């Protein structure tokens, strides 16, 4: 499954970049993230409980590795998640383009593979769920950006 999109933040590129590296920020931005720890340079471990609407299911343990960091422009990441419902593996790229001094456009692209039971029963809604989670995450990130700028 491919997730593609872009999002515009009303913030300087450096601010957005900084927030994207901060586990305390990401834990608020990742849908359902309960915990996110930096376990090494550019490596994070976390627990997520993904909810779609009022339905919440099992906990996923996730591991995220950031790679090819070109501050404040771009990075790639590799993500793995596991839960009793199955696993997910994916790679993604994030590119930040400074539209002007106070506006940053983010392009994101992800290739995500799902495995196990979740792949076997979720197909009817997967496309929509991915879109929803991406939107939720970005909106939450935007709130963090706005909060940071308000400080």
């Amino acid at each position: 499954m491919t997730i593609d999109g872009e999002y515009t933040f009303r913030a300087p590129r450096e601010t957005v970049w900084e927030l994207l590296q901060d586990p305390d920020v990401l834990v608020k931005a990742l849908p359902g993230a309960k915990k996110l720890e930096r376990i090494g340079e550019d490596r994070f471990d976390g627990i997520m409980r993904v909810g779609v609407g009022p339905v919440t299911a099992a906990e996923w343990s996730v591991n995220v590795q950031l790679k090819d960091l070109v501050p404040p422009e771009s990075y790639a990441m590799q993500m793995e998640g596991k839960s009793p419902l199955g696993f997910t593996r994916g790679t993604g790229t994030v590119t930040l383009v400074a539209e002007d001094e106070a506006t940053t456009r983010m392009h994101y692209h992800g290739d995500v593979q799902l495995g196990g039971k979740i792949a076997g029963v979720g197909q009817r809604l997967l496309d929509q769920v991915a879109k929803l989670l991406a939107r939720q995450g970005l909106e939450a990130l935007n709130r963090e950006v706005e909060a940071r700028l308000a400080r």
Partner: protein
Amino acid sequence: MNRSYVGQSVPRNEDRRLLTGQALFVDDVQLEGMLHVAFLRSDHAHALIRGVDVSAALARPGVAAVYTAEDLGDYWRPGPLLVPPPPVEGLTFNEATQVPLAKEKVFHVGEPIALVVAESRYVAEDALADILVDFEPLGAVVDPEAALAPDAPILHTQFGTNLAAHVVQGHGDYEQAKAEADLVISRRFLYDRGAACALENRAVAARWDPKAEELTVWDTTQAPIPIRNGLARMLGLLESQVHVVAPFVGGGFGPKIMMFYPEEVLIPWVAMKLGQPVKWTEDRQENFYATTQERGQVHDAEIAVTQDGRILGVRDFFLHDTGAYDSYGLTVPINSQCTLLGPYSVPSYHSEFKAVFTNKITVTPVRGAGRQHGVFVMERLLDLAARALGMDPAEIRRRNYLGNEAFPYNHQIIFQDFSPLFYDSGDYLPALETALETIGYDSFREEQRRMREAGRHIGVGVVSYIEGTGIGPYEGARVTIDPSGRVRVATGLGTQGQGHYTAFAQVVAEVLDVDVEQVHVTTGDTREFGWGTGTFASRGAVVAGSACHAAAQAVREKILAMAGRVLEAVEEQIELSDGHVRVRGAPERSLSLGELARMANPLRGAVKPGTEPGLEATAYFGPDRGSTASGVHAMIVEVDPETAMVEIKRYVVVHDCGRLINPMIVEGQVQGGVAQGIGNAFYEKLIFDDSGQLLNASFMDYLLPTALDVPRVEMAHRETPAPMNPLGLKGVGEAGCIPTGAAFAQAVEDALPEYGLEILEIPLSPNRLFSLLEDAHDH
């Protein structure tokens, strides 16, 4: 014989129990102290297992035990090869059979890795979430063509290839035929995977009784006796110490004959290990991952014909996706290879297939067992040839049927039973004419034109098939007159809804002239009858039915002999009717069969030297060769080209399964088979992604046709008796589903002539038909 039961639509003996909920199924087995099992299954299609941590699961309250491959010790070993490869010259076969629990590597999603034994299935499933498996994912092999690419990941590294088998068969000189042909049609055909989806999933329950030193196993298997024999061997017990019961089973369709499923190996072992009864019932989600599947072939086929539509030859190269293991040998692709020839005279045939391993669930026979693939290819080739020649599809079939003088007919290739593909008998042309007449073929074009003027698109499809049925090795039966006067029949088959309790009763009742409901049939209990093979390949009625007939004949002789002695008359004077023996002309000299049976087991004195007690006989039937059933299916569809939705308006089956035992049961078999065939054609398809994940593992997304989607089949029987068995029987279990896809494709094309569609694939979903129509529109 006064009364005739064979050939009558007698109501089924088993239905009262089934309809009132009194029939025992494996999941009904409840024993004191019973524990419940859930399996941890691989989420990955292809991965190395670096470690399995079960400690948290073991610590969960209510969990009795957790086992991985390491815990099985010597009991861990690859399962048996069910069917060895047939004796075809130059054949290659790489044997890889499944293991009870994956140890170092998993080969498909759903392969079991660990099992939890707990006080309830709920707790067992909770504990599955506690088990941690460290996987190292490997590249997955999904597409059968890609499996043979030089850079493909290899499943079974000992072979250095994903090739499971390579078989070439044929007769005549195809190249010569091609050179002489007026028309050669060559196409690629796809037939994708489906699941059997029996109403009842698999289930195994086991109890070890240490005092009796006896293992009892309740199993949904189609083959209880081979399961008993195998378990005894694996567990180091005598066959007499293992008692396997296959009670009522809610549908088999082939996958329940796979031996041995890991669960079948493990549940009895756990029961012995823990000294407590244990049960596992597969749930529907597991069934999609853990029960074998079928289909998945790619054919590159070619037909050479003359200007007047006569077949000169057929050449076919095909790939058969055998999934992760090839425990069932080559039955499915050999069936495809042989059944392609159909009811036709094919002077030259070259057929070559490669079976390949893929990271998908293992393939074993599912109703039709590869036959539908061959039929689809041949029937489509004929349709394409007819179209190219401007010939009616029915006419090209007419011109190529084997004539009645051809039988017995030898195709000079080897069939799944290791014998030459041999047609015992057949009478094809009248079946076609009956089908055409029933569906109104002659007036259909007019109707089609009228509908078209009203903006509606209807089409007709008519196809033929043959089915090799009733193969050996053998089955047996024991017939006993009970002192109550009722008749007991025991056979080694398992029964999954085929009506054995009635069909066998009819055969025996006719020989002994008793009421059908007075005949009590037992199947699937190894204590009742310990020799036999199983229910598969449309063979139950033919092979076990013939054994029942032979045993009943032997009992009849004993009855007449004994009655002669007791009633002091010569045997020829004894008449057997209505459950009594009488001296002809002296009706007062009469005994009921029950009285006679009691006399046959004297409490004082002795039977005459050399005679056996009881009115009982056992007989076996082992046919040299199977019997060849055949038929014609015709359907009318309506297609909405705007929405790509297809509705099947009418469905006609004219079939010939030799002499009918019970027409009602036969009609049920055919109707059910057609439902399955319609599923294969239009609704059902197991969809795997590039990493080997199954994407529709539930009835939300895997679409079985329901009663609302299947028309009532209009049926006509023809009875060309089989010469190879005493009752003239041929099998009918699979007939309904074999040619459905081919008929469907022809009918859909016929409904939309202006699109010039070529439907070369099955199943054909509306989404797929939409894109075919879009492509046709663009061109």
